[in-house]
């Protein structure tokens, strides 16, 4: 199965100074489940359409395996149907005038396959997706979930090496979405294809992808595993885009003296001087009984129960922090509590918004910090599972 390589890929629509995609480098491994994630207008769909060949590059190159399929400078352009890929549109794009069967067999008919083979392949794939019973219906007579399956069947029947999906789950209701997620994973395993998936839904990306490329304003902000992206965001955009409730971003310029003082002690002067903002995930704040140095006083502003967990808003000095707790915390608005923050889960960003590695500094300053990756893993589990005052974290 093919790899996908984009190099310095640029796409603009007549205005070179306002590119939809800007000098994008991306390598997608054979058999990978890659998710392009970003807010609307970030260029993720354009990237997908470029790979599909529905758009053409303004500059740079696109190779499938080692074959150049879109290299403007060298005059290479391979039409979409010759790229051996399948595409599921957000709207499904089923042809309303053709029955389900006709929709699915369209591609095979164009390839002028023998009739028996077409019928066999079509019915096999419809069977797999559980839509064989609807074969003679028209798309308008199907529910959203069934239409989705027809779109998948239509893509899979030609056995493409690359599967491209543009927000395929966004038009489904919550329950169906969960079901289709499982289905997509199954399809990915069964067909062993390289799968590229566009979404603006971070949970979907986290749940499905082997790697995620976070995009913003036509530029890839970070490529990494879901854990990487969540725990070690490369910049402020990624940190703030990923996570709900959102990360607490404290601007050090506006931080009060207590807060800064504590940071100096903990991270060392060098780091703090480089740092413009600190990101703290809501689950990395915990109410503590300890009053030792490093804990902070905070006033409870409100508590919103959201079923499994509950979200507290706290006023800590002159900034507001969100904290998630495992269940109703019983905190009374207006009361003062002491909070502890998991230090090894802190994200420091410089003035350009880029991540600063703090691991070495923490060790220098004497804080206990084990190997960053594994340690982080436990801290990122739902907060109630992690004792903050263990050796894995340091109170601030």
């Amino acid at each position, binding site marked *: 199965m093919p790899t996908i390589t984009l190099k310095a890929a640029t796409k603009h629509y007549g205005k070179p100074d306002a590119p939809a995609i800007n000098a994008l480098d991306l390598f997608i491994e054979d058999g990978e489940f890659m998710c392009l994630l970003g807010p609307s207008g970030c260029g993720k769909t354009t990237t997908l359409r470029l790979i599909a060949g529905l758009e053409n590059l303004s500059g740079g190159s696109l190779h499938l395996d080692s074959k150049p399929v879109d290299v403007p400078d060298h005059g290479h352009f391979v039409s979409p149907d010759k790229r051996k890929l399948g595409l599921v549109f957000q709207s499904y*794009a089923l042809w309303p005038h053709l029955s389900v069967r006709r929709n699915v067999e369209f591609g095979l008919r164009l390839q002028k396959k023998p009739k028996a083979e077409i019928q066999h392949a079509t019915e096999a794939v419809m069977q797999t997706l559980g839509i064989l019973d609807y074969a003679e219906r028209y798309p308008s007579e199907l529910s959203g979930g069934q239409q989705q399956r027809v779109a998948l069947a239509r893509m899979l029947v030609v056995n493409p090496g690359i599967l491209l999906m543009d927000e395929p789950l966004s038009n489904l209701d919550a329950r169906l979405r969960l079901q289709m997620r499982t289905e997509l994973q199954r399809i990915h395993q069964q067909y062993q294809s390289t799968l590229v998936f566009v979404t603006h839904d971070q949970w979907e990306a986290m749940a499905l992808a082997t790697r995620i490329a976070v995009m913003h304003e036509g530029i890839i902000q970070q490529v990494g595993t879901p854990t990487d992206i969540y725990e070690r965001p490369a910049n402020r955009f990624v940190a703030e885009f990923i996570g709900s409730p959102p990360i607490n971003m404290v601007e050090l310029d506006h931080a009060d003296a207590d807060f800064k003082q504590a940071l100096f002690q903990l991270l060392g002067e060098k780091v703090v001087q480089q740092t413009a903002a600190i990101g703290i995930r809501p689950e990395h704040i915990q109410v503590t009984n300890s009053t030792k140095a490093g804990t902070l006083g905070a006033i409870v502003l409100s508590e919103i129960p959201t079923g499994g967990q509950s979200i507290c808003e706290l006023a800590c000095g002159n900034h507001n922090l969100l904290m998630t707790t495992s269940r109703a915390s019983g905190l009374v608005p207006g009361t003062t509590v002491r909070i502890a923050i998991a230090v090894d889960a802190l994200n420091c960003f410089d003035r350009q918004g880029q991540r600063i590695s703090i691991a070495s500094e923490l060790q220098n300053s004497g804080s206990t910090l084990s190997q960053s990756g594994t340690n982080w893993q436990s801290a990122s589990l739902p907060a109630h599972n992690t004792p903050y005052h263990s050796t894995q974290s340091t109170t601030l």
Partner: protein
Amino acid sequence: MSVQASRNHSAPWYGRVLYRAKLIGQEPTSVVGLLLILLFGWLIVVPVISLLSDAVLVQFGDERRTGAMTGEFTLYYLQRALFSPISELFFWSPLMNTLAVAFQVILFSLVIGGLLGWLVSRTNVFGKRWLATLLIVPYMIPAWTFALAWHNLFKNRSVGGQRGWVEAMGMTPPDWLAYGQIPIIVILTLNFIPFVILLFGNALRNLDSQLEESARILGASPRYIASRIVLPLMLPALTSASVLIFAKVLGEFGVAYVLGLPVDYNVLSTSLYRSIESRQTGMAAVLAGTIMLLGILSLMIDLYLIREAKRFVTLGGKSSLKRVTALGSWRMPASALAWVVFVVSVCVPLATLFLSTLMHVPGIWQWSNFTLDYWVGQDLRTIAMRQGILLTPELWQVVWNTVWIVGVSALIAGILGLLVGYVVVRSPVKGIGPVLRQITFFPYLVPGIAFAAAYLSLFAVPRGPIPALYGTYLILILALIADEMPFASRAGISAMMQLGRDPEEAARVAGARWWRRLLTIIVPIQKGALVTGILLPFISGINGLSLFIILSVPSTEVLTTYAIRLIDYHYTQAANAVVLLIVVLAIAGTLAAQKLTRTNLAEGLGR
């Protein structure tokens, strides 16, 4: 990674060119767009330019008058049309007549149509649902049909042929009632009332009655609400209706021809017709140019007003509430008024035409006076037309002509319209879309009679590889296609706007090439729009008079010109029968179009 990075310094010089060529090969939309621009440039732009240039170039035969050679630049025609002893008769008085007719028609149809529009959309008038449909009927029938009915009713001895109904009943209508400005205004007003009802009624329908109710809660009287809330919000619809009526009156030929001719009452279009008939090409060009200029001006005013209005008019209101106003003691008179308008504008004219085909002498209500001879009689004791119209072979020849000429051009126009829609919506090259949209809309600004004059001017003589087309079917078909493109391309564009790219791109990924996608995806999905794009031009083509009357010759005659010729020869009954055939075709066509497209002209009114 086995991929070599592509860098500019290693790029061959032909790389980008090859790339472009490959893209165009796969996506020939822009190429098709350019071809369409060329086609419509030839069908629409060139004729118009050729016509306008005739106004300032010396025409064949005018060398001695102008003192210059054929084809040289001259201001002779402009000077003669505008500032010579004949210019009053030829230009200024037709211009004044046109403007006088237009403004009075606008005034009356706005007042009556506005009132009726309000009655059928917002009040509890009796028989509202029926009225909503019936009042629209005149919209489906060509205006000159009504002129003919009027002629049958009121004509006096100023013209030959049969007596009029009123005269037959013992009263002689004066000339001012029988011919000229007043009947023309009445007929055109009746014809444009449905237009106002449609535009104004739809605008009223979109007006949320919460707007009125919130004013009422603040203590505003109904009159205050009407003048300060409703009317300002309706202003765009009203001005739009006025401008469109103006543009249509400019090109209206048949009514003025039937009712103006006997008393030498000329408007611009009839004056143009006369100068074409008398081979004054240069003069005709001046008149046609004037009509076009006025048409373009009025449309530009409309566009400007619509843009201004967009700033405050909020259309759409899906959930808007429609409150029905109880008319109280006015319910009876208001209902009577609405029904009277229906009777006067539909029943009386059609009944007149129909009865006159059944009577030897009009207006005599005796059993012996009734006959079917004019439809199916044989060996009649008349000089010509010795058999009923249905037994006249000429009629069937003309019906066949009409159906195939109009049919072929409507079919081509519909297909081109969809293609134009496709290119306008999909063309990746900037400029092609807008240019194509403007060109295909242009004939709307050019009244049919001026357009026909343009075709005559261009194709009457051989030009380059194209032989002289005058007198052939081809010139009619080409002119009809061009004339119908505004409707066809609008239908195509709006249909394509609603169809996303996805179905087509899905087919592209599956391996379908451009033409294949067009035939297997676009056309089947747009079947309905395509049928509309063919049927609407077909109806307007069957109704149309002004194009044919200039471009038809006896061998290429169609129903409308046949009817006019019968009128000119005073075969009143036969002419009326032909006109009724046209009316039946037009109404049936409109109903079929509504059925097929599941739309309703009267939709929204009376619900």
